[in-house]
């Protein structure tokens, strides 16, 4: 190889290294400047614009640095650099390479010395030193500016009020999208919620949370543990199901965090209302051919699958009770939200005997295959057949027939008294007296019947008498007295008053009076501490006030309230956790939502929080004395 060829090869090798250093240094300074502009953009809350400026600034800096060191691209420039680093060359290298000064013949003449010189060129230590002195400051600047930019928070501008890391642009937790897909059996569509504070959905719904950026470093923790976060195409996502209980998702991305409430909407069981029979009934006897008409309204929030009536026939007394159970009128409703269930059954099917009790109710089932099925039942109606034995423990007073008979008798008595009153002036006095005395005797008999009814009702005076019966008895006494002195006109108002009272008594809804308890009172003075068995009571411990739920809420509220002044974001988090526990109190939950939003927006949350406190504490209870057993109700 010629001397020039050898020199050029050496210089080209040096040039490649120098060019790499120059480009690396330019890129590093460009990145550092870009990071500075990006950080400033965060501080002054102009981030989208600042990011564009950062890129432009980085490009400009790179271009400027490359242009400034453009000499590195020419062999002569690199040769001069080598000559500068190795003075022993004595300009021989540049002379050989510069064709303007050294012709091929001259170069050939210089060949021995140039070859000698070229063999002595060792640029490695110089290149190492050049790399260190040029790249170290640039890389240091990149590291420093990157750290500063990552820690920048809004100080000026529109984001200044939301300096919380959650709201800053550095987090991958904003924006956040939640797609809530209800269980298939509901037939409902998926719902997308942007930047949710609370995600509501039917129990069993699938939630897919999505955010921008890679999944690395993003974590989500639910009440039951960590949830897997996966990355794909520049986004991260996580999938979970809505459980039966409300919960909190704790999202974290490096130093940023975010709470999201998961508020399950339970698939409510069907609401069933028995519309026929309307009320409990007692009968002396029911013909087997008579029909029991059953009707029920059924309503469900999602859909009813099927419904039926359920009956229990209870027979017996004392230790010999037997029961028969069964279902009637099964019907499928294929997901309807409202339905009416009907059945008509002859009473003969139940084979009711005196003393039996027939209990019926309607039961409906919804299509909940996730946490159900939800089963709803109506209230129970009982149809009792009065027992024959009056000594039965559920002895029935003959009240309904007696009052019915009494009303018939009394109506007849009133009609006859009115007739006598009309004819009083046209018939002889003796006839008026005789007829009136007869009517008076009948009034007394009716009164005796009512007294018998009252005695049945009160256990012969052991319980308070129905005032309607007392009114009727008093009025009939007065009426009988008037009739006995041949004053039918004066007796009529009393008879009418008695009739009204008995009619009102018959219309009382629950006229069926069970047997009364005959509990003998205990002679305390005689029995006090007369027992032969000794015992020692255990140590007394203070009883805690009841209603732990409200006390837990009040404690959580107090925790949050203490943080409002010093750490409002933490206070909002505490109220968010509280919010997740009050799902069965819609008013309180809504008020808490308002309070949380106000706290996060740095608005005045005082009035709203005072409403929260009042809701938790409830209305002040006013008692006129200390309750008997010293409890706070």
């Amino acid at each position, binding site marked *: 190889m010629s001397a020039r060829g050898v020199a050029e090869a050496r210089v080209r090798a040096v040039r490649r290294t120098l060019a790499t250093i120059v480009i690396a240094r330019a890129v590093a300074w460009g990145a550092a400047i870009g990071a500075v502009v990006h950080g400033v953009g965060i501080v002054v809350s102009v981030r989208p614009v600042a990011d564009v400026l950062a890129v432009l600034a980085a490009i400009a800096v790179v271009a400027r640095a490359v242009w400034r060191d453009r000499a590195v691209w020419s062999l002569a420039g690199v040769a001069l650099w080598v000559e500068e680093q190795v003075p022993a060359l004595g300009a021989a290298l540049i002379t050989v390479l510069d064709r303007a000064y050294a012709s091929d013949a001259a170069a050939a003449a210089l060949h021995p010395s140039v070859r000698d010189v070229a063999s002595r060129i060792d640029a490695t230590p110089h290149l190492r030193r050049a790399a260190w002195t040029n790249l170290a400051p640039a890389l240091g600047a990149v590291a420093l500016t990157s750290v500063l930019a990552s820690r920048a928070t809004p100080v000026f501008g529109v984001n200044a009020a939301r300096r919380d890391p959650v709201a800053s642009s550095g987090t991958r937790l904003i924006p956040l999208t939640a797609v809530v897909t209800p269980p298939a059996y509901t037939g409902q569509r998926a719902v997308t919620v942007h930047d949710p504070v609370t995600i509501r959905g039917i129990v069993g719904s699938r939630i897919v949370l999505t955010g921008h950026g890679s999944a690395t470093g993003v974590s989500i923790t639910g009440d039951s543990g960590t949830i897997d976060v996966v990355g794909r195409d520049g986004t991260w996502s996580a999938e979970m199901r809505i459980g039966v209980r409300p919960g909190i998702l704790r999202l974290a991305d490096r130093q940023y965090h975010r709470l999201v409430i998961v508020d399950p909407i339970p698939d409510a069981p069907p609401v069933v209302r028995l519309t026929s029979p309307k009320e409990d009934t007692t009968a002396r006897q029911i013909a087997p051919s008579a029909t029991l008409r059953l009707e029920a309204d059924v309503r469900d929030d999602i859909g009813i699958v099927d419904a039926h009536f359920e009956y229990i026939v209870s027979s017996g007394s004392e230790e010999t*009770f037997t029961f028969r159970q069964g279902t009637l009128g099964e019907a499928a409703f294929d997901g309807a939200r409202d339905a009416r269930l009907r059945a008509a059954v002859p009473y003969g099917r139940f084979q009711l005997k005196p003393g039996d009790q027939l209990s019926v109710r309607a039961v409906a089932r919804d299509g909940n295959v996730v946490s159900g099925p939800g089963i709803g039942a109506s209230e129970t109606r009982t149809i009792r057949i009065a027992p024959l034995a009056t000594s039965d423990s559920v002895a029935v007073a003959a009240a309904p027939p007696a009052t019915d008979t009494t009303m018939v008798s009394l109506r007849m008595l009133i009609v006859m008294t009115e007739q006598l009153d009309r004819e009083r002036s046209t018939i002889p006095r003796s006839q008026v007296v005789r007829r009136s005395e007869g009517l008076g005797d009948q009034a007394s008999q009716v009164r005796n019947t009512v007294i018998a009814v009252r005695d049945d009702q009160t256990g012969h005076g052991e319980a308070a008498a129905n005032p309607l019966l007392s009114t009727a008895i008093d009025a009939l006494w007065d009426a009988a007295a008037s009739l006995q002195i041949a004053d039918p006109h004066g007796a009529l108002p009393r008879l009418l008053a008695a009739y009204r009272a008995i009619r009102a008594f018959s219309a009382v809804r629950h006229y069926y009076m069970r047997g009364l308890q005959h*509990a*003998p*009172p205990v002679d305390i003075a005689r*029995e006090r*501490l007369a027992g032969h068995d000794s*015992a020692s009571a*255990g140590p007394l411990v203070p009883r805690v006030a009841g209603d732990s739920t409200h006390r837990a809420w009040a404690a959580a509220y107090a925790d949050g309230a203490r943080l409002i002044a010093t750490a409002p974001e933490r206070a909002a988090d505490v109220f968010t956790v509280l919010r997740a526990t009050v799902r069965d109190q819609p008013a309180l939950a809504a008020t808490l939502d308002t309070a949380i939003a106000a706290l996060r927006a740095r608005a005045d949350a005082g009035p709203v929080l005072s409403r929260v406190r009042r809701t938790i504490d409830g209305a002040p209870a006013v008692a006129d004395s200390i309750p*008997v057993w010293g409890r706070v109700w």
Partner: protein
Amino acid sequence: MSAEFVFATAQYDSGDWESAPLLPANLIDSLVRYTAVAVAPSGVVVPLAGEALFDYPLVWLTGHLPVRWTARERANVTRYVERGGLLVIDDHNHDIDGVFHKTATDEITRAFGPLVELPKTHDLYHCFFDFPNGPPGTSQELNGWGDNLVHKTLSAIEREGRIGLLYSSKDYSSEWNFHPETKRFMTDDPTKFGVNIIVYALTR
């Protein structure tokens, strides 16, 4: 209002709530015999659906027939237990296949969740008289009626670390429903466990 303990029997709509009319007098008698607790000489009947329920720290509910609480009764019972009352429900049929047991436990589960068996070490068995073997047996359990089983434990719903609802299949309502004059012929007073229940309700 009086500061005396008043024994209350629950009156509910669906069944024969009055099936153990002599039980209150016997428990009151035992409470007087063995304790210094101030007590009213006779009990009261309190509707399960009424506000008066909350005036009594202990309410006894029994019967043979189906227990189907009305919505009002269910809400009241829930509030009563949550706020510190003690509702004792005793199966007068002593029959776990019987309709009282099935419907009552169904109602309890609906209102509170599943019943939990009480261990023999529970305070209920030691708070006054000591019952190291748990709930004392009754002669009714093996009398040929009901399920003819000796039920080893009682079940409960606990709130705030204390029993809010006590459920028994032992038929204390039959065992303790004797005429008060009979007690003086008994060698061992069977109602002593009733004293424990009342003392527990008043002191825990």
